[in-house]
């Protein structure tokens, strides 16, 4: 472990290194069959980064298809209710498809097209990334196969139907416990057999290099916009940023453009499920240790024998036993504080936002809203928090009703 006091003095935005490492984390831990493809993806990404036409097309789609920039909204009644810092919400739930996931999918499908790939695969847990992937596949006319755990298919029928409407084929994964981790295993297995024609759109800032980097870069549109918006609105940077973390793509997208603004406190919120004391949570940093899974080294929920354990969260989108490697590094060097919210706390925060702002959030950012509530209360009215509202809650109303004991 790096000593937090030995925080790097240079830019914190320079990573990863040329081998895809953020400190000891990240890397490329994949089977040899995938290695040449991973290396080719990196070369193509470097070419795309140097190609103004690539960025121009990405920006154009962000504006006209996704609906960016998303508003930075001053949540006045939430601020009054808590009685502390001024709270701004980055409204990525207003994106086309209702979450931040589409930012990344647009970027990756443009890469897939550059590489001449003719079909797309993806994994999904709650179905948000699956819907976003199916959406961009329909938009670009590419066939799409989504791997989804059998248990998640049962829990997320509306999203399964959405994906089918968009033309995607859904593969039900029964291996393991039939959740997100197993869907990702199965997508990787399928990819190994179809490397020639298939592009894998990974949904979070994890996986083998260069995925954590490129997903972060595509999602950084969130933080880049938020930084410009708060400067315009308040004439200064915020005092704190807060975002929820499963794999951590919405969070790294908000955080990354602020990493070198050392006066901005940055807080990531993991899912504490039924509590960090037991095994039923999905807090990889709070309850896991470094290991290797799905192509990268990062904090993982695992037992003493190195076997991966299953996460639990009321939010299917946070229910993953790992976390993006850049978060592991930011945790290690102490730049980002990682806190957590339980299922119950997230449910309370979910209802608070509904009542005070007329916004039904997804259960994922409801975890962030809980921590906003705690942190804002200890700050003064002249201080500013930006929280990422990374998804809307339509998909979660059945889960919430169930948790509140309501039949609908």
């Amino acid at each position, binding site marked *: 472990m790096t000593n937090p006091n030995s925080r790097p003095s240079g830019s914190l935005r320079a990573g990863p290194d040329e081998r895809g490492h953020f400190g000891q984390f990240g890397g490329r831990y994949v089977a040899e069959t*995938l*290695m040449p493809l991973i290396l080719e993806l990196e070369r193509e990404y470097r070419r795309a980064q140097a190609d103004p036409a690539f960025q121009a097309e990405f920006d154009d789609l962000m504006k006209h298809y996704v609906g960016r920039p998303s508003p930075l909204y001053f949540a006045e009644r939430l601020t009054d209710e808590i009685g502390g810092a001024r709270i701004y919400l980055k409204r990525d739930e207003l994106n086309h498809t209702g979450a931040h996931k589409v930012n990344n999918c647009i970027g990756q499908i443009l890469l897939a097209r550059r590489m001449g790939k003719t079909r797309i695969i993806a994994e999904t847990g709650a179905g948000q990334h699956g819907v976003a992937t199916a959406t961009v596949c329909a938009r670009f006319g590419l066939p799409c196969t989504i791997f989804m755990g059998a248990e998640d298919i049962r829990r997320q029928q509306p999203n399964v139907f959405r994906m089918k409407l968009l033309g995607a084929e859904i593969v039900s994964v029964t*291996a393991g416990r039939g959740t997100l981790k197993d869907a990702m*295993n199965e997508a990787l*297995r399928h990819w190994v057999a179809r490397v020639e024609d298939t592009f894998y759109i990974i949904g979070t800032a994890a996986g083998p290099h260069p995925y954590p980097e490129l997903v972060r870069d595509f999602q950084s549109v969130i933080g880049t916009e938020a930084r410009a918006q708060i400067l315009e609105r308040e004439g200064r940077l915020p005092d704190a940023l807060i975002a929820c973390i499963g794999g951590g793509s919405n969070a790294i997208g908000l955080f990354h453009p602020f990493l070198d603004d050392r006066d901005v406190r940055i807080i990531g919120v993991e899912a504490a499920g039924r509590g960090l004391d037991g095994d039923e949570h999905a807090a990889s940093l709070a309850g896991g240790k470094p290991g290797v899974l799905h192509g990268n080294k990062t904090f993982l929920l*695992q037992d003493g024998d*190195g076997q991966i354990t299953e996460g639990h969260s009321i939010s299917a989108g946070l229910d993953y036993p790992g976390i993006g490697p850049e978060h592991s590094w930011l945790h290690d060097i102490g730049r980002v504080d990682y806190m957590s919210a339980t299922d119950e706390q997230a449910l309370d925060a979910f209802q608070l936002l509904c009542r005070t702002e007329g916004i039904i959030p997804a259960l994922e950012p409801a975890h962030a809203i809980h921590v906003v509530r705690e942190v804002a209360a200890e700050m003064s009215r002249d201080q500013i928090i930006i929280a990422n509202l990374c998804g809307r809650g339509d998909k979660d109303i059945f889960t919430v009703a169930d948790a509140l004991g309501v039949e609908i």
Partner: protein
Amino acid sequence: MTDRLSAAFARNRAALVAFVTAGDPSPAHTPAILDALVDAGADVIELGMPFTDPMADGPAIQAGSIRALNAGTTLKRTLRIAGDFRARHPKTPLILMGYLNPVLAYGSAFAADAAKAGVDGCILVDLPPEEHEEVGPAFRDAGLHFIRLATPTTNEARLPTVLNGASGFLYYVSVAGVTGTASAATTDVGDAVARIKAHSDLPVAVGFGIRTPRQAAAIARVADGVVVGSAIVDLIGENPDDPAPAVHAYVQSLSEAIRDAT
């Protein structure tokens, strides 16, 4: 370095490399299964280290890993199984195959403990040459062979990277896919083996998708070793109470086919 592996590949016929998962269906069953493999003519034993997330494996080996883990198999137990095997079979090479995370979780003593248990080498499926530093030097210091994989996607330009630091033998994965599913055309395999041999003196064993004695014999004509795994693991799954006799009969049929082929 121990020379059990080179001896196994020095015969005037291809070696039969047989894979089973340690602790499948339970740790108590494994010794009898390993004895059956040796008695039936396996030249090299590949002992799988079970992992919850075997991303490069098909349904057969996934199921074997789950059976082993459900029966309480740990990496410590796997090393005990290896050590006991070494005491009974001083000459048959045994290599471990699996994924990196359990090895990392075991800690820095892994390579030395494996060597002490009489293990000859190790294959880590998700440790490409690019991340070799993770455990490679420790393996070398302990005198363990580090066996690398080459695949149909490993092109001419990349082969030297794969071979750099490889020892024992090279495992050619004959199909782009997971274990136990498709099988490759023999002519393609022969071409690939020849391509690798132009770069290396290491013996080349070929695996993935080899199931019948006829397939084993065909591969034996073009490679230095024939790896069979999923078919054996399937038999173990089908005979959970007493898998050894079925495994013995099947492996003997492979071994005879390989001997007749060359």
